[in-house]
């Protein structure tokens, strides 16, 4: 008997230009104790489906088909009835705990209110029950946690609270909307374990929405692949992974980075004089600025860098991994003169002790590409101006069209504004801008993390190609171990601002990591299962 | 005189009709005693020191708290106040005043000749900067002959001295305070007036209470007087209509019609010598040319001005500061607008192509600007291009007043022809605004001072008026009637044409009066 059943369900949104189809005749069912992984790239309609099931649709939505929860259809229910169903019989876990929790209410209040509402507990009972739940989802000192405000808890803790309130009333079905995407690798792993545990214990029917195939392959029994509002493929995880029928599925699977499947061949000539040497570089985010203190906003205590030393050889790809706040980006910003730092950088024989020393030559040779193309491209500037700046600054003779061609974008894009480009295209423009000055070193700061798997694959492939052609060295910063293992020559692991380990890619497979944190990191993301292509 | 009383009869309000002939104040059934009168005024009472008062509300308070030697009757002739009687030497250069006996200050100390002497010495001292200094005439020295006799010695003969001693700033203060420093009078009041100071909030409310030791056993009738400050005329009017106040000291022409209609309110009106004029610097181009001044004067439609500037509550002016409200007024044919003639005169003066000038008007009172705007339009056809520039009163006083070549003036009525002439138009005038400096005119005014014979004086002043009317040192297009309003239950208040005399001591409250305080 299926807990959740969606039959021939289609959803359209009314827009100025008529109806736009968001979901097209979806059929899926989840039985008790079963986990259905719903995979799709951004814009595929994952979230729309979630809203539809939660009955949280804008007035301009038009539906066909049926959704039924244990036999009854919430589609016909009144608002009051729906309110009674939500949280009671069908719960939801959201992507980002930092925005899905009310900043001005304690975690306890936000957990207890569900219990009061649905299980008609008194305030005191609810509080006690809440503490129990907190303990259940593995939070240390639940009593104290109940009294904390969201900003006083870590992302992981918050997500645990969200999960707790989702499970609070033992619903029959729970929707998980990318519950780990906003979290660190390690934390994510813990949350997944928690999920699996609770799932097994309560045998709730779960719909697990994610863009990450590898991840879904681990948590779900069944998987459904959503593409442009259509379910292209659905079935047992093994079946889908071993024998994908649709080529969209195949492409998705192919795009998933696999450590064993190296993208770069060979390694930079050893022995030769390194391109960059970072000598005991430290960055302090010590005092919160007077001003921000007055305005009351305390700047988040980001770990700086503590005496980081490393070197990059010409043409080498050095991967830097670590959880957010481990100081990866700080290092990148220091190297590009966006942070003041102590220690020194030796570049092309010159010793650079501070931002002052970063002259035009240095800036020309060291370029950076940022994580979010939307924010790294000025929305008010056309591609032409964006690309022309480095040329005018460093007087490269390259033509803008050539630059575009280099990143495989049509020359016609020169007159476009960033918002007229897709995410991938934007990132390509950013890359083109970085390469305009024919730099010796390009720092890639999480440049793929905001992109869909397939797009990410293409961008990575582009980078590799550029590296092969221009012999550019990369400082490749990412949190995706599998990806970095695919293309880095050496991997630097950062933790709490320190460089804890720097190992050669081969040693990783042979001798294996030495530092416990590195090990933890590796365990957190086992390589995705093989599939026959 | 007769002329004035006729006009007053026309505008008769309250007991004015009688007042002109008999003693000041109406004959009426024995007035009720007691009660509180609330008077509303339109400006703060900044100066409590009676020697330094400058504006009507301050005059009012000073008059409530202090007495002078003489005071003005409604016909501008003097009557006894602290001085019982006075005589002058035949040549009018020495005047002897006999003081009332047994008058005491609010602090109980007796008021004697010494105090009078001290007061006038203070007034004559430039450091005191008392306005009275220029008003009270050519007083050379003041001495006490005995406890109750004071002798004024003048530097030149002066017939009007008793009138001038009624000056608003010539109030008698204790000699002790004069010697100890007048600053004390900024905060407290020690006078011989009909009322004593209770509380003083310059911007809001001044309260005075009956002075039982007042020399006149009859008066005052009221127990208490409150002077409330209302900066906004409309609001002030509303307050009176709503019964928030009993007496509105002065009413804007624009408010008058409304108050006239309001029930329970009695609107008061009396013609006066208060006027608004356009001063022209006769010592510099272009106005040093008499033809230019005459031309401008010929563009003015005076009856229209009375409507535009005074809302009709006034009388056309004829370019002399005297009007029927003055004792020595001489009627001259009223100037009519004659654009053609004006053009011709301008051309003769060498401005055939027209003439541009900036007319400056202080922002207080608004009528100044109103006059400017009206003149601007009237003078246009004759080829005058006049830009009206309004500026804050402070800036005006500092930068334009007595210096500017072309600006709007505004003056209260003065008690005598001599006073107004010597204030504004003679070469030695206190405020020689036009720098007209006409020897003939000076002589006429000078001679008139030393003459006792009524007819002779009238002749001299008539000549002076003709001279001004012809030479036009300043254009005086309109005289204002003084306007005020009171609740019907207020009895015995008379609107004085001088605009600075109030005699609240004669006021009493009739039936139905609002209970206050």
């Amino acid at each position, binding site marked *: 008997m299926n807990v959740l059943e969606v039959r021939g369900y289609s959803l359209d949104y009314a827009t100025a230009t008529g109806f736009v189809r968001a979901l097209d005749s979806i059929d899926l069912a989840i039985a008790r104790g079963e986990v259905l992984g719903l995979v799709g790239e951004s814009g595929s309609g994952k979230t729309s489906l979630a809203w539809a099931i939660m009955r949280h649709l804008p007035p301009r939505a038009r539906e066909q088909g049926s959704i039924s929860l244990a036999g009854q259809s919430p589609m016909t229910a009144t608002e009051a009835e729906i309110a009674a169903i939500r949280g009671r019989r069908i719960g939801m876990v959201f992507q980002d705990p930092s925005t899905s929790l009310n900043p001005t209410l304690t975690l306890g209040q936000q957990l207890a209110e569900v219990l009061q509402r649905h299980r008609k507990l008194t305030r005191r009972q609810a509080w006690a029950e809440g503490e129990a739940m907190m303990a259940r989802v593995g939070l240390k000192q639940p009593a104290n946690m109940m009294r904390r405000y969201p900003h006083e808890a870590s992302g992981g803790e918050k997500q645990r609270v969200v999960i707790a309130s989702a499970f609070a009333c033992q619903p029959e079905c729970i929707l998980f909307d990318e519950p780990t995407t906003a979290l660190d690798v390690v934390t994510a792993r813990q949350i997944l374990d928690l999920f699996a545990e609770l799932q097994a214990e309560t045998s709730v029917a779960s719909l697990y929405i994610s863009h990450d195939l590898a991840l879904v392959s681990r948590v779900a029994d069944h998987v459904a692949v959503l593409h442009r509002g259509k379910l292209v493929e659905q079935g047992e995880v093994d079946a889908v992974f071993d024998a994908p029928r649709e080529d969209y599925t195949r492409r998705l699977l192919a795009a998933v980075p696999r450590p064993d499947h190296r993208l770069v061949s060979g390694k930079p000539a050893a022995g030769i004089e390194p391109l960059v040497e970072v000598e005991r570089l430290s960055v302090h985010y010590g005092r919160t*600025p*007077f*001003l921000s203190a007055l305005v009351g906003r305390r700047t988040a205590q980001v770990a700086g860098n503590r005496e980081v030393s490393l070197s990059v050889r010409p043409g080498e790809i050095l991967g830097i991994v670590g959880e957010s706040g481990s100081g990866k980006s700080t290092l990148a*910003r220091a190297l*590009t*003169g*966006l942070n003041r730092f102590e220690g020194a950088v030796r570049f092309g024989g010159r010793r650079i002790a501070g931002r002052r020393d*970063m002259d*035009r030559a240095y*800036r020309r040779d060291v*370029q*950076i590409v*940022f*994580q*979010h193309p939307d*924010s*790294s*491209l*000025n*929305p*008010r*500037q056309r591609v032409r101006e964006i690309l022309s*700046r*480095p040329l005018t*600054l460093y007087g490269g003779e390259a033509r803008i069209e050539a630059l575009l061609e280099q990143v495989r974008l049509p020359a016609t894009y020169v007159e476009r504004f960033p918002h007229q480009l897709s995410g991938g295209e934007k990132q390509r423009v950013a890359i083109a*801008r970085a390469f305009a000055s024919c730099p010796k070193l390009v720092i890639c700061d999480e440049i793929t993390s905001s992109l869909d798997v397939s797009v990410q694959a293409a961008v990575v492939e582009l980078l590799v190609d550029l590296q092969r052609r221009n012999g550019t060295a990369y400082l490749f910063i990412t949190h995706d171990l599998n990806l970095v293992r695919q293309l880095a020559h050496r991997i630097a692991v950062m933790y709490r601002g320190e460089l804890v380990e720097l190992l050669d890619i081969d040693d990783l497979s042979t001798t294996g990591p030495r530092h416990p944190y590195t090990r933890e990191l590796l365990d957190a993301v086992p390589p995705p299962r093989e599939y026959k292509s | 005189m007769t002329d004035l009383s006729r006009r007053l009869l026309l505008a008769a309000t309250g007991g004015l009709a009688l007042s002109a002939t008999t003693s000041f104040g109406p004959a009426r059934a024995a007035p009720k005693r007691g009660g509180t009168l609330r008077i509303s005024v339109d400006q703060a009472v900044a100066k409590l020191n009676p020697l330094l008062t400058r504006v009507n509300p301050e005059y009012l308070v000073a008059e409530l708290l202090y007495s002078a030697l003489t005071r003005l009757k409604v016909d501008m002739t003097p009557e006894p106040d602290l001085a019982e009687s006075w005589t002058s030497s035949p040549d009018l250069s020495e005047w002897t005043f006999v003081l009332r006996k047994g008058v005491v200050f609010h602090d109980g100390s007796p008021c004697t000749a010494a105090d009078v002497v001290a007061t006038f010495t203070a007034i004559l001292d430039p450091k005191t900067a008392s306005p009275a200094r220029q008003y009270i005439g050519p007083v050379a020295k003041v001495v006490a002959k005995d406890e109750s006799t004071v002798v004024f010695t003048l530097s030149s003969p002066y017939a009007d001295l008793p009138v001038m001693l009624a000056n608003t700033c010539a109030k008698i203060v204790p000699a002790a305070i004069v010697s100890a420093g007048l600053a004390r009078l900024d905060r407290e009041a020690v006078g011989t007036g009909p009322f004593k100071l209770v509380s003083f909030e310059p911007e809001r409310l001044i309260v005075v209470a009956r002075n039982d030791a007042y020399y006149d056993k009859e008066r005052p009738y009221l127990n208490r007087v409150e002077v409330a400050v209302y900066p906004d*005329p*409309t609001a002030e*009017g509303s307050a009176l209509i709503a019964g928030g106040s009993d007496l509105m000291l002065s009413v*804007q022409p*624009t*408010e008058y*019609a*409304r108050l006239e209609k309001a029930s329970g309110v009695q609107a008061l009106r009396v013609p006066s010598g208060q006027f608004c004029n356009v001063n022209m610097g006769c010592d510099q181009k272009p106005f040093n040319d008499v033809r230019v001044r005459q031309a401008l004067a010929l563009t003015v*439609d005076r009856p*229209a001005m009375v*409507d*535009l500037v005074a*809302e009709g509550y006034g009388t056309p002016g004829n370019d002399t500061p005297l009007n029927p409200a003055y004792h020595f007024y001489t009627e001259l044919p009223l100037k009519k607008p004659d654009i053609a003639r004006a053009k011709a005169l301008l051309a003769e003066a060498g401005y055939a192509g027209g003439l541009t000038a900036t007319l400056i008007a202080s*922002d207080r009172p*608004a009528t100044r*600007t*109103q006059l*400017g*705007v*009206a003149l*601007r*339009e*009237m003078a246009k056809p004759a080829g005058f291009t006049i830009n*009206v*520039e*309004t*500026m*804050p009163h402070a*800036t005006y006083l500092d930068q334009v007043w007595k210096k500017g070549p072309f600006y709007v003036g505004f003056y209260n009525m003065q008690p005598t022809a001599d006073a107004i002439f010597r204030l504004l138009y003679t070469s030695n005038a206190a405020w020689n605004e036009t720098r007209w400096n006409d020897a003939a005119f000076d002589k006429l005014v000078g001679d008139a001072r030393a003459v006792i014979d009524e007819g002779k004086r009238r002749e001299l002043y008539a000549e002076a008026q003709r001279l001004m009317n012809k030479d036009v040192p300043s254009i005086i297009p309109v005289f204002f009637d003084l306007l005020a309003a009171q609740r019907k239950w207020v009895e015995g208040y008379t609107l004085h044409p001088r605009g600075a005399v109030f005699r609240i001591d004669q006021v009493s409250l009739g039936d139905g009066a609002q209970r206050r305080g």
Partner: protein
Amino acid sequence: MAELLRRLLRTPQGLLGVLIVGLILVIVVCGPWLAPYGPDTLAPRLRYRPPSAEFLLGTDQYGRDILSRLLYGARSTVILACLATGLGTLAGALIGTTSAFLGGRADEAIMRTIDAILSIPSLLFALLIVNLLGKSSFSAVMAIGIAFTPGMTRVTRSVALAVTKQDYVNAAIARGERGGYIVLREMLPNVVAPIVVEMTIRVAFAVMLFATLSFLGLGAQPPSSEWGLMVAEARRFMHLSFWMILWPSLAVAMVAIGFNLLGDGLRDALNPRT
């Protein structure tokens, strides 16, 4: 741009705002030609006339035609207000953007001082300045402009601060661009949108501030037919003719409402969420 206009007209405020402001602009441009009479021709015998076929909105204390005065007055009223706002905005935008770009101590010093000045109520500030410069439309413009500057600086800075956090600014710095370029080309264009909104709304305030200054006798001076001044003058004649104060008040209110609506419309139009 066309896109923006479409979004603008989609919201009721936007539509209404565009209509009203459009109408006002028409009056500003061709008011004098529409006016049946001269703005200051006296008619001593036609004073305080109620609306009639002859004088559509009646006449004032000088017998001048109120309609004509309004039509002429639109220019001074609106143009002056816009001028003042523009002035304040320009100054504010420059200071704010620069301050945000400089950051650190400099930014702090600037903003502390700006805040300090902000703590003087703008009307009081304007009063002082007008008294300083002498009363005239010009000094009123200056006064309001200056009085607006601190506020605009704050707004601009907060927006600019958000912009400086953007990576395209970082990219520019990493490229080694000069400060001038970064402020003018990278930051300002992105700061503009919110500022335009603030500006439109402030025009409304400017109109009212002008009126208020005139009411206190410090704004435009007679015989100007600036609307605020007309209201201020009419107050004294309120009980002789109600129309005199009614019409210019409505006019002022209309301008203010128009720009307020337009501003809010723009805000919605520029706001991705709606």
